[in-house]
């Protein structure tokens, strides 16, 4: 957070403003220095360098901004072109007036500097200087003459009086100092008006050179702090007594008033000359300063143009990027707002829009999720249904199906999705009856379907698992607007149900037959026997024979009817099975032995599984099954050859259960193809005699034990009846019982 604030500060307007302000201050100081300010004069060069470097830094900053902007334009970044336009407008608006002001300022500056100089003033200053020179020249010549006189006086003075003479002469002349100097530069005598002055002023080498050249020297020299003095140096005339050449230096103070006036004239003249000489450099210098100010203003304005344009375009760029993000599906985009202007209002509106979009999207997702959950729930429910469900679209093409439909129709319907029933039946011929039965409903038009409403059809299929009876119901599906979008077909495999109903009906018939027919049979039989017993001996032979034959027939038929009624009675009898562990192999052997012993013409082969587990069953009922099957097999065997029967026991291990299988096979004609499924129904038989209840009873008993039974014609001839009984493990011994009782 702190780093971001620091970064914002560094890249913000603050530092640049401070920088420009400092440069401005520096330029003000430089301007003062240009105008001769003593305080900033020393800093002029430094200030110039600082300003130049500052301007270069600003120019670099602008260059970088320009480069960045052009790169953004090249990349087609949103807002870049608008920024270019705004920068151009800002720059033109700010630079043009600045340049105009610059041009006129330069003109005024040059004219202003030129106006400082006037020929008349220059002439007056020259004249004033010349006047001063003239006035001082007269006085100086007088002082030279006077000094030469003094020098002449000193020539003849003896050495010991020179100091006194020198002092007297100085006093008389009003000089501030007289010094007599020897040839080697040593001071012979000196007199000064200043008693504190110990070392007299010496003439310089240059003065001595001039003295040697012209014999005298006179000049206006500043002497230490004492102000302007007239220095006169003369050589003393040659003297016989003093062989060495001597010189006299006299310093005459210039009157204070005269000195001040001379100084004023001289300094004013000097200043004017200096100013006149500096006219061109001053102009250049001012122009330079003004140009620096101009550049600073320009650069600051250009930078401000960049900054302002960026600031103004930034929210629009954000909006553009935000819009792009929304277009790409990112509804979480929230833009930063600043200020209270119209753009901020726009940004707020954008943020509000994205919030609403995000909410709407979330709601849609929730709805989709709910729909998906609902769909999955329905799918789960449908997949768990034992009822087959198909949905067809408006064109009669398969849209969805459930697992039960796959199982019932024995078709992988998922692979058939999108096909019509007709197309499906081409790949799966056993579906032809279904397609034929439903064709009218599936191809019905929208209007007729609406008129028709729900429909119901019973369809018989002959599938790989045998004959199936399907109860189909159809309902048109309509969308929320009422338009027809397809239909749903629900179907159940009612084969077992019909079979059960049929079994129940036959049981009822058998029970009634047994009840209604058995009762009069005994009186009929007794009556016939009584007729025979009473009248057989009394009737003539011809009649008695007839009676005998007739009564015998009656008795035999009654017996036959009794047997039939008993059979019906057995079939209708409620199950009363006594379960215990039965060794099936032993049971088979027992039954087979009975037939082998009683009839040598019967060949019964057995193949018994050694690992057969005990079967929990009613041994008597199982024995009855075997009797019925052997009897059936014997009856099915061709009469011309010895009957041959093969009985086999198997232990079948399946993933979910273990089964004991008993197969009986005859070697007769086999089963007619149309009777494979109905062979176990009552009154269905291929024999000329018998009640037709044998296999029906077999099936009934097998089912009472929770098993299944079916018949198969063998390719090599003959037929097999296969029974499978579930082996109940010790852990769940009670449950099959319950199940069987329920059956």
């Amino acid at each position, binding site marked *: 957070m702190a780093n971001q604030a620091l970064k914002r500060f560094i890249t913000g307007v603050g530092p640049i403003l401070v920088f420009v302000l400092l440069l401005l201050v520096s330029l003000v100081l430089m301007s003062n220095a240009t105008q001769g300010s003593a305080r900033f004069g020393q800093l002029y060069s430094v200030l*110039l*360098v600082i300003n*130049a470097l500052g301007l270069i830094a600003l120019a670099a900053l602008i260059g970088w901004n320009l480069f960045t902007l052009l790169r953004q334009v090249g990349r087609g970044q949103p807002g870049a072109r608008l920024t270019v336009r705004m920068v151009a407008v800002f720059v033109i608006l700010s630079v043009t007036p600045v340049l105009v002001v610059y041009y006129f300022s330069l003109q005024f500056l040059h004219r202003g500097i030129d106006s400082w100089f006037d020929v008349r003033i220059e002439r007056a200053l020259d004249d004033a200087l010349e006047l001063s*020179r003239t006035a001082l020249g007269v006085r100086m010549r007088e002082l030279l003459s006077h000094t030469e006189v003094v020098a002449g006086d000193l020539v003849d003075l003896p050495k010991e009086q020179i100091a006194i003479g020198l002092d007297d002469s100085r006093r008389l002349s009003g000089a501030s100092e007289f010094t007599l100097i020897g040839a080697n530069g040593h001071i012979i005598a000196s007199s000064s008006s200043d008693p504190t002055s110990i070392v007299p002023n010496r003439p310089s080498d240059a003065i001595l050179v001039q003295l040697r050249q012209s014999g005298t020297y006179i000049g*206006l020299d500043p002497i230490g702090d004492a102000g302007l003095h007239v220095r006169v140096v003369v050589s003393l005339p040659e003297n016989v007594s003093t062989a060495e050449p001597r010189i006299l230096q006299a310093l005459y103070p210039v009157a204070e008033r005269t000195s001040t006036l001379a100084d004023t004239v001289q300094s004013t003249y000097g200043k004017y000359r200096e100013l006149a000489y500096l006219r061109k*450099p001053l102009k250049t210098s001012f122009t330079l300063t003004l140009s620096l100010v101009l550049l600073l203003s320009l650069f600051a304005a250009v930078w401000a143009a960049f900054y302002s344009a960026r600031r103004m375009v930034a929210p629009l760029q954000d909006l553009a990027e935000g819009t792009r993000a929304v277009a790409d599906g990112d509804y979480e985009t929230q833009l930063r707002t600043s200020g209270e202007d119209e753009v901020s209002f726009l940004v707020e509106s954008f943020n509000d829009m994205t919030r609403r979009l995000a909410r709407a999207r979330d709601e849609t997702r929730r709805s989709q999720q709910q729909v998906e959950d609902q769909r999955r729930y329905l799918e789960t429910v449908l997949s768990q249904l034992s009822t087959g469900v198909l949905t067809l679209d408006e064109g009669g093409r398969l849209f969805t199906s459930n697992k039960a439909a796959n199982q019932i129709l024995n078709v992988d319907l998922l692979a058939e999705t999108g096909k019509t029933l007709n197309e499906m039946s081409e790949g799966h011929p056993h579906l032809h009856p279904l397609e034929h039965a439903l064709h009218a409903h599936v191809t019905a038009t929208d209007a007729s379907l609406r008129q028709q409403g729900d429909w119901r059809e019973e369809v018989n299929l002959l599938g790989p698992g045998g004959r199936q009876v399907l109860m189909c119901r159809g309902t048109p599906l309509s969308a929320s607007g009422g338009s027809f979008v397809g239909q749903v077909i629900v179907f159940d495999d009612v084969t077992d149900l019909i079979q059960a109903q049929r079994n129940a009906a036959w049981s009822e018939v058998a029970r009634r037959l047994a009840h209604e027919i058995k009762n009069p049979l005994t009186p009929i039989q007794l009556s016939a026997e009584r007729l025979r017993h009473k009248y057989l001996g009394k009737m003539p032979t011809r009649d008695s024979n007839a009676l005998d034959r007739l009564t015998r027939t009656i008795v035999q038929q009654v017996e036959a009817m009794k047997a039939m009624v008993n059979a019906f009675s057995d079939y209708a009898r409620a199950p009363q099975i006594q379960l215990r562990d039965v060794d099936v192999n032993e049971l088979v052997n027992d039954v087979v032995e009975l037939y082998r012993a009683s009839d040598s013409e019967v060949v019964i082969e057995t193949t018994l599984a050694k690992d057969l587990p005990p079967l929990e069953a009613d041994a008597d009922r199982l024995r009855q099954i075997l009797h019925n099957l052997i009897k059936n097999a014997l009856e099915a065997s061709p009469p011309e050859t010895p009957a041959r029967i093969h009985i086999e026991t198997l232990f079948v291990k399946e993933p979910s259960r273990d089964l004991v299988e008993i197969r009986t096979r005859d070697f007769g004609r086999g089963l007619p193809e149309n009777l494979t499924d109905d062979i176990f129904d009552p009154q269905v038989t291929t024999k000329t005699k018998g009640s037709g209840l044998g296999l029906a009873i077999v099936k009934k008993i097998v089912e009472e034990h929770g098993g299944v039974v079916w018949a198969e014609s063998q390719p090599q001839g003959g037929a097999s009846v296969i029974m499978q009984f579930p082996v109940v493990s010790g852990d769940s011994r009670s449950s099959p019982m319950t199940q069987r009782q329920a059956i």
Partner: protein
Amino acid sequence: MHCLASVERFRVRAWPAVWLAVCSLLLVITEPSTSAPEEIKAGFDIHDARTELVDGVYLLDADIGFVFSDETLEAIENGIPVTIILDMEVLRERGLIWDNLWWDEKVAHIEAKFRIETRPLSKTYLVRNLNSGEAQVFAAFDDLVAGLGKIRRFPLLDAHLLRADGHYYLRLRALLDIESLPSPMRPWAYLSSLWRLESDWYQWPIKR
């Protein structure tokens, strides 16, 4: 003129580098230095320099040739004061490489400044020692050049500032002080070779 100059420790003089930058930044074309034959002659040259130990003080005697350019002379004639600097450095050898000044210790840095002015009233030239305040008047500019170029008995350094076991040497150069010119002239003076008057360093060992 003969006054003990102030002795200061080493001070960085960065102006040449700074002005090199200014030259490149302002992109001002400098005046051609070979435009006139006489301008080539302008410059300072140290003919001879030596030190002498007198009463515990090293005194400098030097003979320097000053040849001013026309621009400089014109400015002086027009009343622009011009300052000449005698730049002196006392260095102690570190015993590594004689020529490598970077390794030698700078013991003292002395600057003697002389300002040349004109006196229009007396039509003379004044040379003022800015260190001592002493002034000297010359009737002609040639006299001034001769007088300024003859440095005699300039008190340089107290002997006790030098270590007894050290090997010292002294180097001297003369240059025109552009910074003392009026501020409007300085930028152009820095950029013009006619104003950049400077002698080479003259170097000699200090005899003990």
